[in-house]
């Protein structure tokens, strides 16, 4: 009786790491995926498919650079089109990685240790995909460096009062800091790979990347401080990036854009789609690579809860948009709501509500949160829904605004679709390579989950 009472509440949940692991088994299990596991036919086949899609992207972009943005479906009044829809979608997906690595680190959520590495990798690849769209959308991407302030013979400078310039700073800082955070976390694991690889060239490769890390107590001490400070700096950063992206819209006067709810609603939507992408990747990976000991049912369930929570914030955002359409008394605002519900894109607005608000409500039931197959399906639906949300925000707002005489329709062309699907291919190509080249779970952080890693706890156990 008395012993039962002593079990802390946390222990009754599924464990963060399955029992029976030691420092050696953790190290073996994760590093062998990179160093020992043979390359399977399935991996090669998947890689070829994804690499072909990447090449399709290259063709689409190559033709775009020859002909110009006229090959896309954009025109007046819808000048933003797929490029901005996809930009916002990808950058939103990236947010889960930083949230997991930084915010959950500060909150001491130890379950993050087994998913932060590949969530951060996902962030980097997603932001890389996102960054291509505004560049391609400029029409003359070879002049992209004009966005940055630098002394030039034309004697011009960027307008720092423009949200588009803020966005350049926000996205490039976000990419750089995500890369720094990811690499900092990798250093000790690269040393592990260096010490365990047998081939001299592989050893040299990881040796160079590990920068000579030797696990000295002084080094660890400074390392932990630096890591914590990076987490502290990334926390406001991740909240600011999608806020600034939302300013691209909210600072404009277009009905449906000019609203103060955009920053929090964009950030919640970003985390929502980001966790959906993490689940879409984690569920197959843990099965294929036998990592169910490290990415347990507890992880899936917790991530599903985060999705449910952020999804409700997004639902509040939709509700508030509809309410303000009525409450503001502005004719253009109430017309926008009417147009969403009954206009030419009404089907897609209904699909958006179903994907983002309706279907994910099944996550209230534990059965759906712990069943990998169903959870994967719901995550996929959320990804589609969040893409539709950006489509509705960009296109439905632009295609019918103040001037009835300049209303129009937007139809994406095959080049739009090739570019979009091509970036998905590029993203997955990068993930495909990542899981075989770098440890996809942080080895040293997993070691710290074992009780014997904590000097005081272990001493108490011995007593």
């Amino acid at each position, binding site marked *: 009786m008395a012993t039962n009472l002593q079990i802390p509440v946390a222990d009754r949940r599924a464990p963060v790491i399955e029992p029976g692991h030691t*420092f*050696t088994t953790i*190290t073996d299990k994760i590093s062998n995926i990179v160093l020992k596991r043979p390359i399977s036919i399935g991996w090669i086949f998947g890689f070829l498919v994804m690499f072909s899609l990447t090449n399709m992207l290259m063709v689409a972009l190559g033709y775009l650079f020859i002909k110009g943005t006229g090959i896309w479906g954009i025109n007046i009044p819808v000048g933003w089109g797929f490029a901005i829809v996809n930009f916002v979608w990808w950058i939103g997906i990236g947010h889960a990685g930083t949230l997991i690595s930084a915010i959950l680190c500060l909150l001491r959520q130890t379950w993050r240790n087994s998913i932060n590495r590949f969530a951060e990798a996902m962030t980097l690849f997603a932001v890389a995909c996102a960054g291509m769209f505004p560049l391609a959308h400029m029409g003359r991407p070879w002049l992209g460096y004009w966005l940055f*302030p630098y002394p030039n013979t034309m*004697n011009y*400078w960027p*307008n*720092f*009062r423009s949200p588009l310039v*803020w966005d350049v*700073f*926000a996205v490039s*800082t976000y990419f*750089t*800091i995500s890369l*720094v955070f990811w*690499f*900092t976390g990798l250093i*000790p694991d690269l040393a*592990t790979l*260096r*010490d*365990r690889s047998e081939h001299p060239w592989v050893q040299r490769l990881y*040796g*160079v990347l590990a*920068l*000579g*890390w*030797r*696990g*000295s*107590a*002084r*080094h*660890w*001490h*400074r*390392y*932990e*401080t*630096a890591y914590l*400070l*990076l987490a502290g*700096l*990334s926390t*406001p*950063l991740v909240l*600011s990036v999608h806020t*600034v992206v939302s*300013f691209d819209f909210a600072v404009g006067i277009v009905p449906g854009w000019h609203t103060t709810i955009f920053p929090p609603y964009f950030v919640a939507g970003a985390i929502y789609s980001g966790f959906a992408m993490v689940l879409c990747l984690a569920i197959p990976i843990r099965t294929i690579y036998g990592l169910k000991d490290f990415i347990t049912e507890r992880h899936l369930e917790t991530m599903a809860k985060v999705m449910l929570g952020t999804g409700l914030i997004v639902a509040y955002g939709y509700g508030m948009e509809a309410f303000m359409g009525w409450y503001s008394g502005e004719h253009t605002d109430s017309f926008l709501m009417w147009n969403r519900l009954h206009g030419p894109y009404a089907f897609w607005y209904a699909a958006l509500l179903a994907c983002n608000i309706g279907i994910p409500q099944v996550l209230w039931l534990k059965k759906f949160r712990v069943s990998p197959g169903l959870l994967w399906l719901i995550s996929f639906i959320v990804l589609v829904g969040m893409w539709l949300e950006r489509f509705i925000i960009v296109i439905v707002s632009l295609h019918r605004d103040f001037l009835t005489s300049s209303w129009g329709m937007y139809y994406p062309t095959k080049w739009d679709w090739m570019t979009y699907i091509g970036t998905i291919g590029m993203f997955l190509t990068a993930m495909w390579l990542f899981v075989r080249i770098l440890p996809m779970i942080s080895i*040293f952080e997993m*070691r*710290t989950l074992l009780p*014997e*890693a*904590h*000097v*005081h706890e*272990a*001493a108490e156990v011995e007593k």
Partner: protein
Amino acid sequence: MSESPVTSSNYGSNYGLMAEFDSAQELVAAAHRTHVAGYQKIDAYSPFPIEGLAEAIGFHKNRVPLVVLIGGLIGGLSGYALQYWVAAITYPMNIGGRPYHSWPSFIIVTFEMTILFGGLSALFGMLALNGLPMPYHPVFNVPEFRKASENKFFLVVFSSDPKYDAAGTRSFLQGLSPRMIAEVPS
């Protein structure tokens, strides 16, 4: 820099003595006893960060936060200064009748530059204070040291320590009941 320099002039024929331990607890206890015994030039190596180990070898001075603070301040101030100089002095533009020095518009870039410079100084400051990258280090000459990145724990007394003497230090380390003791060739 508090790192011991890796030049052979300070050291004799060997760089120090290395003792291997099985657990984090043993390493912390051994490091503490070695430090209390008066050894100063010592270091401990582990496959993951161990709470209290840096204190056990007498390491307290951690300047990473200061570096990050300075980096962040430089980033923020230079970001704001650049925008002020561009918008109010060298390239003034009338945007919707706003004042040239429209500071609320400059907050975001200032913030992003603070984070950018702070984050970069966290990584590069940490590496510089640690003396990394350093591809070669004498401790790597001990074959067992490969396990320092997996599951074993090491304590090294450097031969540059004033109290160091090959036989005496070896018998002192023996008293800590390690798994093995090895000479670190320089």
